[in-house]
């Protein structure tokens, strides 16, 4: 529909106007470029392809969850259960593979189906009984973590050959010995699928409509109830897929995996330019939000002298600045 920018010829010369909705995403890209640039100047060895690819590798699961979370937030809802579903996925995978000797090819589709069904259940509750997403997904979070602990209190290490093989696979990218993992490729694929879903399908347009004004969307005849259930189902699927990637990353199942990840996902989505009120935002912004969170972590680890809790403070500060800028743009448009 509308281009990113338009150029008009008016008396006095050319005037370019950038669509106001794209500005937050451009802001996120700018923050990422500036931060990465700062790191490259300040630290030796920062400016290398492998460091950049490590951002994707180490945050692949966050990116996948972010895709699902973007749809949820675009529709004006929230999903607090994503971290817990990741943990449940790792725990079920580990239990199936290690204790019941299932093959990876059988376990992975099962956990994906489980996560999708979990999301569908929450979406159905939200739509059918008009419950608030915050509480439903909060209860879902308790339920998923509780089920984790029911399976096992301690962590279960995965020694299965297929899992370790996939975990250790490095696919060369072709530039300077840099390589990427299966998980990171999955993350990029999911972001691409997310972009297609959001901008190229009726589902995506309905999501934006629901976020803009749910009552209007209903009156327009859009399938709001079905789409809402699908949104949470997709988020559940993304959480399960992220859980699979997390399993490759950690090679263990543990109830305390991914605690607080839902807030990191929300932070990534918001930093990427999606408004929490819904209706505005771009999927690519979430990818840059994830990259920004990753680059902050990398900066601090490269510095070495800063304690790890500075990460939390810096992320908090970045969140503050992004939201402040979002508010200013909103007010100016208002």
């Amino acid at each position, binding site marked *: 529909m509308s281009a990113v920018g338009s150029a008009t010829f008016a008396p006095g010369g050319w005037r370019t106007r950038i669509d106001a909705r794209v500005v937050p995403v451009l802001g996120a890209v700018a923050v990422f470029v500036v931060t990465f640039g700062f790191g490259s100047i300040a630290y030796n060895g920062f400016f290398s392809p492998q460091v950049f690819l490590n951002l994707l590798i180490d945050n692949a699961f966050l990116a996948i969850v972010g895709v699902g979370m973007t749809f949820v937030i675009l529709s004006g809802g929230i999903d607090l259960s994503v971290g817990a579903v990741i943990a449940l996925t790792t725990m079920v995978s580990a239990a199936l593979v290690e204790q019941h000797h299932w093959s990876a090819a059988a376990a992975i589709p099962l956990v994906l189906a489980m996560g999708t069904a979990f999301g569908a259940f929450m979406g159905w509750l939200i739509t059918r009984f008009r419950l608030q997403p915050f509480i439903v997904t909060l209860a879902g*979070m308790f339920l998923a973590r*509780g089920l984790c602990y029911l399976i096992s209190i301690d962590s279960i290490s995965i020694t299965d050959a297929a899992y370790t093989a996939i975990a250790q696979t490095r696919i060369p990218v072709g530039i300077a010995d840099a390589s990427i993992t299966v998980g990171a490729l999955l993350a990029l694929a999911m972001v691409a699928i997310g972009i297609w879903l959001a901008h190229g399908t009726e589902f995506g347009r309905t999501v934006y409509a629901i976020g803009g004004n749910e009552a209007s969307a209903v009156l327009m005849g859009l399938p709001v109830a079905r789409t809402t259930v699908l949104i949470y189902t997709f988020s559940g699927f993304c959480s399960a897929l992220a859980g699979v990637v997390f399993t490759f990353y950690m090679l263990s199942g543990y109830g305390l995996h991914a605690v607080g990840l839902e*807030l990191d996902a929300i932070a990534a989505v918001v930093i990427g330019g999606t408004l929490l009120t819904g209706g505005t935002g771009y999927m690519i912004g979430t990818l840059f939000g994830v990259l920004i969170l990753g680059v902050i972590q990398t900066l601090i680890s490269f510095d070495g002298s800063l304690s790890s809790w500075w990460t939390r403070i810096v992320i*908090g500060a970045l969140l503050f600045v992004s939201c402040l800028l979002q508010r200013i743009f909103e007010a100016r448009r208002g």
Partner: protein
Amino acid sequence: MTSLLRTLAQHRLFWPACTLVLLLAVNATFNAGFWQLQWRDGHLYGSLVDILNRAAPLAVVALGMTLVIATRGIDISVGAVVAIAGATAALLIGGTLVLKGGVQTYVSNTPMGLAIVAALLAAALCGLWNGLLVARVGMQPIIATLILMVAGRGVAQLITNGQIITVYYAPYFFIGNGFLLGLPFAVFVAAAVWLVLHLLMTRTALGLFIQAIGINPAAARLAGVPERLITVCVYVFCGFAAGVAGLIVSSNVKSADGNNAGLLLELDAILAVTLGGTLLTGGRFSLAGSVLGALIIQTLTSTIYSIGVPPEINLVVKAAVVFVVMLLQSAEFRAALRQWVRRAPLPGASA
């Protein structure tokens, strides 16, 4: 009789009270000595006293959270504020070993009163930060408080320098471990906060204003309610309440842990408020409901421990209780239930 039951059932606190009674009954059937109260060492002992004691910090936070939720907001940073308050108090008090009159005693680094005031001030400042972001900058409450929730843990770690600060100064332990008139002091603190809030809400127009802001902020503003000021004050009080809870918690464990203090407390607090009947969409609120909600959550935890069920089930049961209560609170669910009940044929009635 049925009309009395019906009028009772209409009361907002009916379902939370029922849930609590049910939980207590379950606890009592499995635990023979549940209702026993003994007087030992100058104070009351018993499972009921225990539940009240442990529920006190959660009740205080839930009371603060109620007002925030009533104004259509939410505060997910209370856990971090609990950690900050506890860390400030512990840092200022500490406890150095000195020789006083030939006896080794611990003295605090700063006068205890000053330390407590400083901790509460720090907590109120956190609340002020949240309130300004929501009311002045106009950010959505969940994202505004998310900032402090993320950064606050870092700040708490900064205060404690990454260590767990142990408090050795004995008088400080009275807040979380002391007894007054036979009951734990923490219960009195929670009761005092509840009483003060209740008086403020009912004897002044504050309760009316807060409800008005929650029901329709624009209309309230046009009617002359000082909406922004009240919103900021509500968040300041929520921070202050979290500070009080932080003092109780850190005094109870005689230390301050920047990482673990108040972890997931915000979720329990929001749960307590919702269980008590206050809707997350704001408007009418119930302070008694939130206290009931806190008691329900604590009784649930105690029931699970006392039944002998593995504590891992705690989360699953909590999830089940949340599902049931929120379904019961949903009008659509009650309507669907009534329809389902009515569709079942009555015995002896003609088809």
